[in-house]
């Protein structure tokens, strides 16, 4: 029997050439007894290995997993440390943390002193394998014996170097001399020999040289694979193999033992977490139900508190409570979401503003005691102020107890093709050309036709190698980055739970595990996320309060305003949270949301998951029937009706799929949870199929039809990783409603707030401004005599609000310069350009930017005159305040309208003048190009020709269409480009700023689409009018 004690996964970046699960299943296959995962100064890959072992156990296979790590000391000494027990694991993590924190991101530094400095008994629960170099350094051995008495082995790694016999003999002698036992090990870098091509490539990538120059850095052979036991028996004396078993037996630690311990300080003295949570909840009840709580809600709260107490989750709720308390105090807008966030307890604690009145159905499901899964609460904070919250958490709990979860950055086809191409020694320009052919919609794999398109022969040997290696490298982890906001907070030292390393951002540290790893181990994290819309809403509240003196908060806005819903149904939603995308907009008139819960569905349904799972059309049909009063769904059972009733018989949310698996397929809670995980990763691992049989059989047993079972499975498959949880949708829906409400009642303030929160959302300032003008908002131009940095509201004669564009739109102007302008203007109004320059201390760059943007119009006349005026200002003149150089002023030509429009776009990205297409209209009309308005009255099914500036190109999920939105002077035009057309007219599709489309007009419930048959790039007509398109991936 054999246990492999030295094995690297691909989390030893650019060395290990196999995924953890490949190693685990190969070890099982070969009949290894145990497998130690010993990534270099890292435990980042162990959770994946742990999950793989658990999966093997489900199949009835056994493999013991040992956690360890390989180190290379600063002086060259190499060894492997193996954790014997929980304490040893903690010691290992601390050592890794120390080594990682001592070096820059991505590297580590460890010295022999480190081992001593950590205390006498440090590493007392770790077993140590010494990895002697080719030239054995006896001194290293003596030190090892001294530092790790009685728990140090000499690892004998025989890798067919030609001198295996003498090496073994030499180590045996040293072992005798030092009194150190020998053990066999394999230095495993890959699970099978065939990975050597990739392993060689990884080495070259690591060195940053082509393979031909990697020389002795490449391994001479592929012996670092998992060798079958018979082969090991040929190579090693029996005793050395047997020793591996003895070491494995002494390592009893399992990741199962890790248990999260909550911070203590969230509970005041003299209280227990239970009593404190109860107290806070009761306080919340009195606030939220001033007239007294109703019986159902009271019962619900009691049920929730009981469950929380049973699972001992109180500290978690209290931790989140503490964080949102801080935000409240600092007036930072936030909103909780996630399954636990939609509990009444969270409502009482002020974590979410979604009141139970809004949607009674949601609170039916909550953390189930059966599913032993940590509660899920994500809190979105204002994008611009989240950093304050993060710093608060660090400050409150200390850096030794707090860190952000990692995000594993993996190879994508483009990055893989670049790195492999370089390793194969292809010319950089060629590689670039190849990588460029990989568009964001081409998906995971490199495809021969793309290669041909780039002008390469897919049959050429080097190209075949490139494709093979790229496809193997895709999904390999490349480095650890920081998660957007997943915090882990520990009671004691966090570094005894998981190693902490430096992030690239200064003052940030990340743990070595990502969010999925934490989840797999049942560890808790608090998500501190950022949301731009919260910033915009808070700013809008601020503007409304300042201008109208009316105060609003998230939960003060009255639900159910039908005028707001009317606007939503008209798809008049540019700028509204979530539902402003092309796909969402085209759904609104058909879905016809009239209530809060309709919005919850709207948010979730226009997602790749439901679209691919083919849930949209059945739902729309049922919805239409319901409106006509003809809805008659026959549910296969009452239980299924309970699950699917609220979504008219169609599963739309992730939770519903799990519930269906439970009530109809007979899954336990744990199994349903596994199903959810498999759903999220089936594209990566493809192991969803094992649930298929179970699900089908379970359903057939319970009397459901084969057809029903198949449909549900297909929907699950389609759901994939894009399934959207109802609990998140519910929280988002509130922001949808609030932003729509603000747009309806305060369009000027809402637009100003959106402009001031850029970049965010789907639309650029130009579209937001045009939309506002279409809604009757007076928009005033950027002007040094009136604008501040942000967009502001100005009083019109009739006391209503006009929107003044801010100087932030001016390209090349800094905020500081804008602030100086506003401050100088506040002292005294400006009368000349020179005066602005002098008093606001503007440099040449700022002056040019302002002149080009037309911001001097009120002082200097037209743009040409303004440019002449500012270009004559010497930067140094502020030193001689009173000298004004009198000079000749040429009578410059008045800019033409087109020039002004082009300059507006170039310098402000928008114009308040005519739309550029208005100028082109005569030419377009001659070519029979219809405007957006003309399309509205054109008969459906006819062939039409239209054109507009490209506003967005969007490919929803992994569907096979591309949505292009065009804009002309009369409105926007929705174009659908099928994959086949997109392929054929890739250049016109990607390149056009002004696109002319020939296609068929399609109309459905007021939604108009042009199904493109031909695309033409008309950008040339625009000259420099650079209306920027935003591409969404």
């Amino acid at each position: 029997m054999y246990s492999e004690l030295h094995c690297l996964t691909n989390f030893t970046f650019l060395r290990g050439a196999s995924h953890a699960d490949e190693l685990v299943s190969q070890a099982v296959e070969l009949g290894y007894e145990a497998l130690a995962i010993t990534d270099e100064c890292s435990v980042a890959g162990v959770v994946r290995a742990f999950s793989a072992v658990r999966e093997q156990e489900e199949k009835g296979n056994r493999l013991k997993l040992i956690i360890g790590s390989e180190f290379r000391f600063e002086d060259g000494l190499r060894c492997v440390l193996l954790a014997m027990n929980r304490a040893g694991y903690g010691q290992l993590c601390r050592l890794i943390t120390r080594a990682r924190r001592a070096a820059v991101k991505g590297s580590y530094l460890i010295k022999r002193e480190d081992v001593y400095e950590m205390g006498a008994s440090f590493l007392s629960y770790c077993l140590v394998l010494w990895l002697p170099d080719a030239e054995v350094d006896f001194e290293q051995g003596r030190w090892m014996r001294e530092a790790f008495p009685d728990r140090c082995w000499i690892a004998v790694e025989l890798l067919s170097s030609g001198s295996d016999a003498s090496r073994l003999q030499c180590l045996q002698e040293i072992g005798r001399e030092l009194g150190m036992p020998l053990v066999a090990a394999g230095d495993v870098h890959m699970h099978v020999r065939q990975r050597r091509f990739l392993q060689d490539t990884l080495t070259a990538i690591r060195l940053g040289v082509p393979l031909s120059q990697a020389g002795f850095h490449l391994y001479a052979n592929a012996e670092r694979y998992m060798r079958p036991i018979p082969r090991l028996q040929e190579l090693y004396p029996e005793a050395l193999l047997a020793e591996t078993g003895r070491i494995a037996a002494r390592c009893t630690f399992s990741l199962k033992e890790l248990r999260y311990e909550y911070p203590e300080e969230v509970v005041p003295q003299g209280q227990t977490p239970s009593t404190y949570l109860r107290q806070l909840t009761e306080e919340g009840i009195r606030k939220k139900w001033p007239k007294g709580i109703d019986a159902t809600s009271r019962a619900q709260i009691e049920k929730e508190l009981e469950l929380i107490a049973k699972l001992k989750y109180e500290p978690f709720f209290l931790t989140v409570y503490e964080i949102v308390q801080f935000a409240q105090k600092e007036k930072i807008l936030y909103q909780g979401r996630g399954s636990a966030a939609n509990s009444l307890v969270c409502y009482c604690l002020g974590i979410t503003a979604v009141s139970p009145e809004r949607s009674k159905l949601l609170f039916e499901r909550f953390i189930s005691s059966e599913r032993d899964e940590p509660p899920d609460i994500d809190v979105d904070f204002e994008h611009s102020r989240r950093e304050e919250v993060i710093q608060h958490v660090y400050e409150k709990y200390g850096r030794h107890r707090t860190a952000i979860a990692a995000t594993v950055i993996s190879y994508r086809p483009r990055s893989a093709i670049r790195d492999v191409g370089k390793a194969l020694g292809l010319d950089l320009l060629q590689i670039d050309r190849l990588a460029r052919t990989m568009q964001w919609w081409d998906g995971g794999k490199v495809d021969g036709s793309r290669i041909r398109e780039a002008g390469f022969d897919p049959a050429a040997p080097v190209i075949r190698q490139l494709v093979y290696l790229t496809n193997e490298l895709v999904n390999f982890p490349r480095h650890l980055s920081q998660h957007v906001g997943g915090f882990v907070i520990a009671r004691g030292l966090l570094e005894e739970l998981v190693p902490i390393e430096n992030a690239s951002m200064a003052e940030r540290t990340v743990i070595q595990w990502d969010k999925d790893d934490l989840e797999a181990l049942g560890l808790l994290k608090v998500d501190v996320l950022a949301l731009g819309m919260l910033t915009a809403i808070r700013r809008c509240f601020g503007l409304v309060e300042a201008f109208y003196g009316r105060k609003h908060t998230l939960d003060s806005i009255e639900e159910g305003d039908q005028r707001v819903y009317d606007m939503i149904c008209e798809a008049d939603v540019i700028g509204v949270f979530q539902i402003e995308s092309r796909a969402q907009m085209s759904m609104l008139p058909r879905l016809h949301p009239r209530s809060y819960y309709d919005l919850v569905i709207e948010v979730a349904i226009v997602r790749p998951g439901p679209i691919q799972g083919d849930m949209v059309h059945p739902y729309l049909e049922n919805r239409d029937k319901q409106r006509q009063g003809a809805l008659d769904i026959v549910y296969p059972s009452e239980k299924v009706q309970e699950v699917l009733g609220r979504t008219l018989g169609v599963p739309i949310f992730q939770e519903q799929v799990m519930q269906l698996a439970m009530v109809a397929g007979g899954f336990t809670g744990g199994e349903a949870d596994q199903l959810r995980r498999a759903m999220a990763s089936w594209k990566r691992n493809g192991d969803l199929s094992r649930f298929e049989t179970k699900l089908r059989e379970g359903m057939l047993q319970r009397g459901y039809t084969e057809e029903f079972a198949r449909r549900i499975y297909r929907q699950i498959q389609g759901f994939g990783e894009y399934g959207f949880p109802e609990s998140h949708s519910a929280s988002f829906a509130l922001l949808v409603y609030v932003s729509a409400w603000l747009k309806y009642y305060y369009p000027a303030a809402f637009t100003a707030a959106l402009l001031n929160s850029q970049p965010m959302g789907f639309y650029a300032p130009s579209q937001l401004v045009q939309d506002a003008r279409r809604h009757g908002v007076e928009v005033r131009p950027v002007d040094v005599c009136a604008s501040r940095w942000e967009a502001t509201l100005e009083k019109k004669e009739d006391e209503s609000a006009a929107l003044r564009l801010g100087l932030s739109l001016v390209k090349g102007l800094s905020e500081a310069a804008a602030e100086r302008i506003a401050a100088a203007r506040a002292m005294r109004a400006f009368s000349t350009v020179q005066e602005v320059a002098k008093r606001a201390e503007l440099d040449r760059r700022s002056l040019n930017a302002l002149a080009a943007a037309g911001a001097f119009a009120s002082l200097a006349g037209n743009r040409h005159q303004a440019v002449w005026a500012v270009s004559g200002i010497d930067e140094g003149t502020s030193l001689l305040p009173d000298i004004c150089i009198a000079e000749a002023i040429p009578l410059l030509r008045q800019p033409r309208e087109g020039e002004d429009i082009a300059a507006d776009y170039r310098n402000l990205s928008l114009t308040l003048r005519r739309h550029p297409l208005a100028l082109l209209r005569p030419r377009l009309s001659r070519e029979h190009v219809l405007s957006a308005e003309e399309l509205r009255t054109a008969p459906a099914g006819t062939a039409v020709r239209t054109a507009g500036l490209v506003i967005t190109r969007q490919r929803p999920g992994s569907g096979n269409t591309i949505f292009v939105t065009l804009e002309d002077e009369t409105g926007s035009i929705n174009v659908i480009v099928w994959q086949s057309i997109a392929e054929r007219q890739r250049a016109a599709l990607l390149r056009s700023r002004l696109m002319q489309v020939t296609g068929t007009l399609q109309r459905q419930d007021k939604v108009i689409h042009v199904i493109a048959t031909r695309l033409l790039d008309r950008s040339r007509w625009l000259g420099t009018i650079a209306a920027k398109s935003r591409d969404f991936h």
Partner: protein
Amino acid sequence: MAKKTLDLFPTETARFVPAAAVNAEKLYPHAPLLNSVPIATADARIKPVHRRLWLALNFPLLPFAPDIAMSATPAVTVETAGNTKIVLAANIAAQRLEIVRGMRLNSAYALANHLKVFNRDPHEERRALERLAAWSLQYTSYVSVEAPDALLLEVKGSLRLFSGARALRQRMFSQLNEMKIVATTAIAPTSLAAVWLARSAGPYPNIPNLTLLSRYLEKLPLSCLRWPEDICNTLQDLGIRTVGECLRLPRDGFARRMGISLLQELDRAAGRVAQPRSRYVPREIYKARCDFEMEVENTLTLRNLLDPILDDLESFLRSRTAGIQALKIVLRHRELGDTRLILRFVTPIRRKRHVESVLSERLERLNLPAPALSVRVRSGPLQELHSQTLNEKLFGIAGEQAPEGIPRLIEKLRARLGEDAVYGVCQTEDHRPEQAYRKTNLRTTVRGSQPHSLQPTAFKSRPLWLLSQPEALMSNQGAPFLNGPLTLERGPERIQGGWWDSADMNRDYYVMRDRRGVRLWIFCERGKWFLHGKFG
């Protein structure tokens, strides 16, 4: 680079009103060229300069090899500026796709999917331009190189010689066509204007005088001037597109905003200030010829006859502080073809002694096929001498101590054994035995370095003597066999790799002894045995 102008709006005639005059001299007492009148207005202090007539040749495709310039596949040459690559030149096919100079490579890719991209090679461009300069000397003796892509030919005199501009141009272009060189051209009384007009790619202008020139400049787009990007942007923001519009701006205002040097450029282009231009002088090589008074039959006589030429060569090189690395000697016979000797030197040399020593080695081995009538000697390009060689000359140190250094030895060996017979060997970092040593070119490696010492430390277990080809061995029940059974001493050493540059290798090497005790290096690949080397 100037922004592309908005071309969808029709051009109106611009109206300008002369600016109010302000005494600029008070403000800029040291800038006599400044005043507030428009730039174009005649100024009494500035006398028109008009003595020459310039023909500018602009080579927009100079950065391409001729076949790529004309190829049907779009190609661009790029220049790297910071992190971005900018198109420097686009070939005809790329120009058809509207790829233009100054565009970012990414944008060019968007226009042409199958774009070929080359990095700029300024040295090659310079060489190409110099070749063209040498070629153009046939039309005038006064040629000036306007780097990086234009030539200026002073043609006032030549026009008469070639019977008019039209004929001259035709003749030029037919030659250029043969050479597959694309050029645009213009004739103007000032050199700068000629270059600008040539770049404008408009119809070929032939402008004999300044009056006509000002009319041409009127419409010339500013992009032909290649002024700095920020200046072009400012001018564009002022609504100014052409040189003519520029010339109407007030002098003082223009100089303050755009800088006095650009004002001077305008003045030079308009012919109000002279612009001296340096003449192109072709690059030198050494050439000599000697017709023998009688036919020469033996090499010894030949050597004596060459002696004065070698003296002349040394003094030629000395006066130019240069050396040569190659010398061609061509002997002419009465009826037979020529005999050519090419001498190569490892480092640039100057001294007659060096040339002589190599020459005599060659002559010793030379059998003259027929008596020689004359000899012509032609050197390779002149090269800078390495400092060591200079030191030899200045201080006479190394020269005296090591008159027969390794370079000289190599030259002699080569002269005796042939060019390819002498090469260096160096160890390379490679696990594969065949690739572990490599021939090196001594000419590039010898200078200033010691001969590579071979340190087989990395391969202690390998023999020094490798067979040039592995030799297949018989096998007996799977065991190798060579004059009887072999005994295993050590192994295996497994070597796998090389899949990236040749066939994949997958071998197990063993050290074995044959019956006589000779140690052999043997490998097994795909079940077959091979002998690869013997230990000493």
